[in-house]
């Protein structure tokens, strides 16, 4: 079955991408499958300068999910370009850089550093970070800021597709999606983690040193589906669906709504070969539903009249 996806001009061999922060730089998973078989790899969030990230504990398992507050620990974009990217099979699969910055200009600079890199297929913008220049509220919670960040990245992206990864922690995600589209985004990924919290009754402490963190895993799938549905209604550009995908059927649910592709995040922790197995299972699961191909299945959701 032809599983290829055309994502804003970027051709993926299949709709399975790995989500940022759950698949390292891809190299960590080389022993568990053929990373070139994936539709693409969205690498760990990159900042201009290296970041140590948050103090421990940083992760907590919750029923059907987990919380994380890693704090974008990463070696910085230069180390990625020098040490990681050359070792990745970027001619065979899409390597998507995930951008993290704390002001608009920095986002633009980061895009500028990546723009000329042949091995980077697209840029995904993480707007869930606090805007340090504008009082610390997350960029992603203000459509006006989303427009500005998207414009800044798009202007310096050297023609690469720009994907804006939206936060679900907003009142109207459709407005955020429209903001990204009007800023020039080529695609949207939805959604990032839901803000959550867990406490330990015995020690009477929060279970994360950062107190609050991002909830991911199967627990958030219904929220993610709703967000993707609302984004699809709001914009014309492609939407990549993610949030709680832990089986081929979960992935198909996002595609049924009309998502162009999907990202697998927390399920990579269920077992390290999860995404490779999903690539193999997806065509079978699709055929099992009687679909002739991916394109005819995508968006075939029947809504009540």
């Amino acid at each position, binding site marked *: 079955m032809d599983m290829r996806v055309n994502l804003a001009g970027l051709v993926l061999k299949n709709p399975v991408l790995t989500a940022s922060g759950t*698949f390292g730089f891809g190299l*960590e998973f080389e022993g568990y499958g053929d990373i070139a078989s994936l539709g693409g790899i969205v690498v760990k969030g990159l900042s201009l300068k290296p970041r140590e990230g948050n103090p421990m504990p940083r992760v907590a398992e919750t029923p059907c999910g*987990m919380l994380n507050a890693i704090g974008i620990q990463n070696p910085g974009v230069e180390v990625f370009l020098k040490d990681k990217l050359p070792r990745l099979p970027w001619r065979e699969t899409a390597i998507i850089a995930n951008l993290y910055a704390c002001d608009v200009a920095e986002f633009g600079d980061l895009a500028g550093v990546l723009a000329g890199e042949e091995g980077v297929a697209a840029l995904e913008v993480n707007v869930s970070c606090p805007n340090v220049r504008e009082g610390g509220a997350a960029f992603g919670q203000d459509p006006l800021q989303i427009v500005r960040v998207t414009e800044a990245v798009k202007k310096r992206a050297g023609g690469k597709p720009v994907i804006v990864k939206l936060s679900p922690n907003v009142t109207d995600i459709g407005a955020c999606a429209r903001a990204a589209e009007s800023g020039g985004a080529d695609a949207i990924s939805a959604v990032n983690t839901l803000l959550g919290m867990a406490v330990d009754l015995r020690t009477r402490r929060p279970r994360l040193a950062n107190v609050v963190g991002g909830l991911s895993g199967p627990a958030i799938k219904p929220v993610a589906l709703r967000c993707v549905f609302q984004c699809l209604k709001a914009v014309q550009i492609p939407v990549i669906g993610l949030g709680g995908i832990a089986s081929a059927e979960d992935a198909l649910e996002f595609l049924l709504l009309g998502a162009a592709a999907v990202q697998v995040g927390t399920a990579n922790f269920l077992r*390290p070969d999860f995404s490779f197995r999903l690539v193999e299972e997806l065509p079978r699961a699709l055929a099992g539903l009687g679909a002739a191909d991916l394109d005819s299945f995508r968006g075939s959701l029947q809504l009540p009249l």
Partner: protein
Amino acid sequence: MTRRNCREMSVGELTPLGQWERPGEFFRLRLEGEGFARWTPGQFVMLRPLAWGPEILWGRPFSIAGADAGGVEIFFQVVGRGTARLAQLAPGEGVAVWGPLGNGFVLEPGVPVLMLAGGVGLAPFLGYAAAHQQPADLDLFFAHRLPLACYPYAELAATVKAEAMCEAVPADLERIIARMRERMAAMAGAGLVLACGPTPFLRTVRQAALDFGVRAQVSLENRMACGVGACLGCVSRDAHGHHVQVCTQGPVFWAGDVEL
């Protein structure tokens, strides 16, 4: 497609230890299938039973207590909902196993070794004693809270020189620490100390290693989600204050290279 490091194994034996003392708390688990031809004591595996649904997401990390071409053995204590579920595994059940992971202890033939184990931290030393060419060069000091029958201690004491001290009441802790330091001081200059146990235990080992100038390695047991270096959830700080991943850069570190 190569999947050399994630395999599906089946539950061989699941043996409760010391069940007459504390029912269902300590277990020895043997998984059968394609085992590990090559591994180093101190390395670990991640396990996740195939029957686990989405309710418990992460695999669980365990020191390899023993492994061969036909299987792998671990020793575990029930401490939470994951290990409680592992304790209910039935023979023949499928388990996803990935590993061997991380870096193990050094093996230096001819060098006297003092193995310091705290509680369930005894596990990697079963493998170490089995892999070592001259178990007669090995000494074990074991600090524990529950009866010795709960741990695979007797088996290890049959092959290496072993000493155990029980922390039955809080006041015992001071005696144990004094004895540990005494044993470590005797290793200065010529020997090697290897330690696995809870963080306060490892902190004592690290301090004594620095005080006496003893070469020592410590095996950390931070909570992990992935085990392969991707989630960055298990980090500790190195001597320069930078984060290091316990799963891929450890779990065994030279005592001076890591903050505890």
